[in-house]
């Protein structure tokens, strides 16, 4: 028990300097999900281009009006195409993208399960 307590105290002291407020603003998250059209592979958050600055203004306005993340994304997608958002939409054409990794994961699990079961049968024989 004493050992565990000392662990806890060490963690406490170490984490003391953490700030406790909610710092990752949603706005920042939106900027990071938008792609800069005139840059080579940068987000609106990271780019210093004029285009990025203008988009930030528009996103800020809509955000302050109370629009949700998805509404802002859909607005920009209707103007610039799906390419402008880094997170692919959950549409029919992206179905394979979102499901194939998990499908393969499940297949892998099934495979291992079968190997173990076959091993058990081999043992039994």
């Amino acid at each position: 028990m004493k050992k565990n307590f000392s662990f806890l105290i060490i963690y406490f002291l170490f984490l003391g300097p953490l700030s406790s407020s909610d710092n990752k603003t949603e706005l920042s998250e939106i900027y990071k999900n938008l792609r800069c059209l005139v840059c080579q592979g940068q987000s609106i958050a990271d780019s210093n281009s004029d285009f990025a600055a203008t988009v930030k203004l528009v996103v800020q306005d809509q955000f302050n009006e109370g629009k949700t993340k998805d509404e802002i994304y859909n607005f920009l997608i209707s103007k610039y195409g799906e390419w402008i958002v880094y997170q692919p939409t959950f549409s029919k054409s992206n179905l394979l993208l979102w499901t194939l990794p998990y499908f393969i994961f499940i297949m892998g699990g099934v495979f291992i399960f079968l190997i173990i079961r076959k091993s058990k049968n081999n043992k039994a024989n």
Partner: protein
Amino acid sequence: MKISIPKIIIFSFTIFLLSVFWLGLKINHNYDTKSLVGSKISKFYVTEINNENQYISEEDLKKNKYTLINFFASWCSPCRVEHRYLMSLSNQNKEIKIIGINFKDKKINANNFLKDLGNPYDFVGEDTDGKISISFGIYGIPESILVNNELIVIKKIIGPINQVQFNDILKSIQ
């Protein structure tokens, strides 16, 4: 080697993958918004550059058979190069109305620009902070959009208008 189903699947999949890579080499990888041609423009509200009581909205575009919306700025050199095509369009053609939207510029510079090179625009709007350009899907200057009276985008010209695009515009509005 025995021919079995898994082997056929793996070989076929590999051929498929490599073919896609091959085809992928041929296509252009710079993104542009040309795919947005055919979409409808949304509501907008632009005030006149010299008179904030005057404005134009999407309703006004319905009155024209065709409208060319041109984003320009006095500090943009390709805008100077394309300007003569705009002048030519405004002189020749009564089928098409031309709206100029002055992007992230100062009123006095814009006015001087139009005084020097001529004013082809039926209306000059101001977009000092650039936000209006976003609602038109603009990402660079100059950029022009040709819309019809149903507010459908018929043409997007990204960059300065050149001779070929000028001819295309004329053809589209016949």
